[in-house]
């Protein structure tokens, strides 16, 4: 059977038929790659299910509204010309400041300064939002360690279970595994010499 590919999502969503699901699960049991993909898919869906709807922060809203306020025109984006004379893209040494070019509503340089500050605030808010989203997702994905019940493994029972099960997996007398089990069942370890 080939890798699951896009069927990983269908498997997690329970959209596969009974027969297809069993085939997919049998493949997953032997395919590390698909098992990891399946685990990742489940984790993402679980994380998304636990997230609350995102609400923009007041700072972000203010920044967006500031962008809509009247201001200086956006400088034209330089494009390559398919034909005609080549226009130099870099300003000449004697070029005038950008604020002085045809901006009659503000003093020279004031619009550019405001735009730069707006971009900086927007970048800062965006960065903080990304950081918050990542840390929030990590916190949700980390699950809660509280409330997990404390357990003490039943040591003697597990050791007997190990011997009873694995004695059949090695070529040898079934009693060979049992003798070493004694150390856990009752009293101290076998004689040291």
């Amino acid at each position, binding site marked *: 059977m080939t890798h699951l590919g896009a069927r990983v999502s269908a498997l997690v969503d329970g959209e596969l038929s009974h027969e297809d699901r*069993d085939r997919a*699960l*049998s493949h*997953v*049991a032997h395919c*590390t*790659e698909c098992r*990891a*993909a*399946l685990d990742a898919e489940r*984790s*993402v869906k679980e994380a998304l299910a636990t997230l609350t709807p995102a609400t923009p922060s007041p700072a972000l809203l203010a920044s967006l509204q500031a962008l809509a306020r009247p201001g200086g025109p956006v400088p034209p984006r330089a494009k390559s010309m398919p034909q005609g004379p080549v226009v130099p893209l870099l300003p000449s040494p004697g070029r005038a400041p950008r604020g002085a070019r045809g901006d009659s509503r503000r003093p020279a340089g004031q619009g550019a*300064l405001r735009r*730069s500050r707006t971009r900086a605030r927007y*970048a*800062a808010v965006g*960065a903080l939002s*990304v*950081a918050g989203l*990542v*840390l929030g997702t*990590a*916190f949700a*994905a*980390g*699950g809660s*360690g509280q409330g*997990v019940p*404390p*357990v*003490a*493994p039943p*040591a003697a*029972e*597990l*050791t*007997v279970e190990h*011997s*009873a*099960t694995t*004695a*059949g*997996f090695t*070529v*040898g*007398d*079934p*009693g060979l595994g*049992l*003798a*070493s089990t*004694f*150390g*856990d*069942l009752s*009293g101290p*370890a*076998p004689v*040291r*010499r």
Partner: protein
Amino acid sequence: MRRHVPVAGAVGAVVVVLAVVGPLTVLALLGPQDSQQKASRASGRGPAGSVPHPVVQEEARQLLARAAAAPAVTPYHGVQFVSAWTSGGATSEVVDVDHVPGKGTSVRSDGTVVAPARHMTLLAVGVPSIADGGVVGLLVAHYSLRVVGQDTVAGRAVDVIAARRPGARASAHDTARFWLDRASGLVLRREVYDEGGRTTRASAFVSVSVGQGDVSPDAPQRPWSATMDTAALARLCVHGWHCPSTLPGPLTLVDARRGGSGDEDIVHLSYSDGIATVSVFEQRGRLDEKGMDGDQRATEGGHPVFVHGQVPRRVVWSSGGVVYTVVADAPERTVDDVVAALPHRGAEDGTFGRLGRGLDRVASWFNPFG
């Protein structure tokens, strides 16, 4: 001058983004590679496809198949010694063994100055729920096998079979040897060696009577009855249990079953290569350290664990809301590698522990190595 403030703000924003995204990228890129390197080192494998195939002598395969089937049809009684050598010292015990097909195997030891008399009857598992080919299939998959001679054990003629890692140099040592009774096929002696050829396990009959055995009528210890096949195990994996198909050694997943009930549900995964055996038990919860009084705190592969005994060796720890118990009769290095290959997510409580686990999971979503 007027452009300095906004530029500084933009640079600060970029730094914040890098501070968050950078570690995640590093985790995503380095974590899987580190795990792969660890697994590769542990298994002794080189790059993919470089694992040599075992060379199996047909006569050796037939003799071992006969030996594996013998306990199902042959009763016996005998006295045998069981010895083990580890870095923690040597242990040795002499036991009476009775075996009756279908009733189980009874083992008794007389009391000594340091150990009381003990007795246990056990009915071992028949057919593994996962691995195909049974015991001989496991051996053939992991070792080169050949007949190396004849000998006598407890006065009975035996054939000697040697198992060696495939691709080993001519001067390398065998991993194990089996002394098989010519008349019944039973294993009368078995020895396991480390890489330097030193004996780490030895068990042999001092005397044996084939054809008669006396198992006490008491109910024998049995493995948990709820077995899982491949499909059932796959469903278990989907629900968040950790169930790798192989472990360092390399060891193959042979059998899966469940024990306990309700909140104390325990998953038991058995791994073997036909000689070494490792059980991995998984239990939902966090480790109650107050209940580990008889165990020693230790560090294995940089991870804090509780350790008990040498043969079998038991290692316990908890990670991500699951308590792991490894019970192993395997070389110490293999046990260390197995423990290192299983999950260790550190502290389970507190905001930073939760964030750490979450960042691990988020990084795994972007893991390009699957």
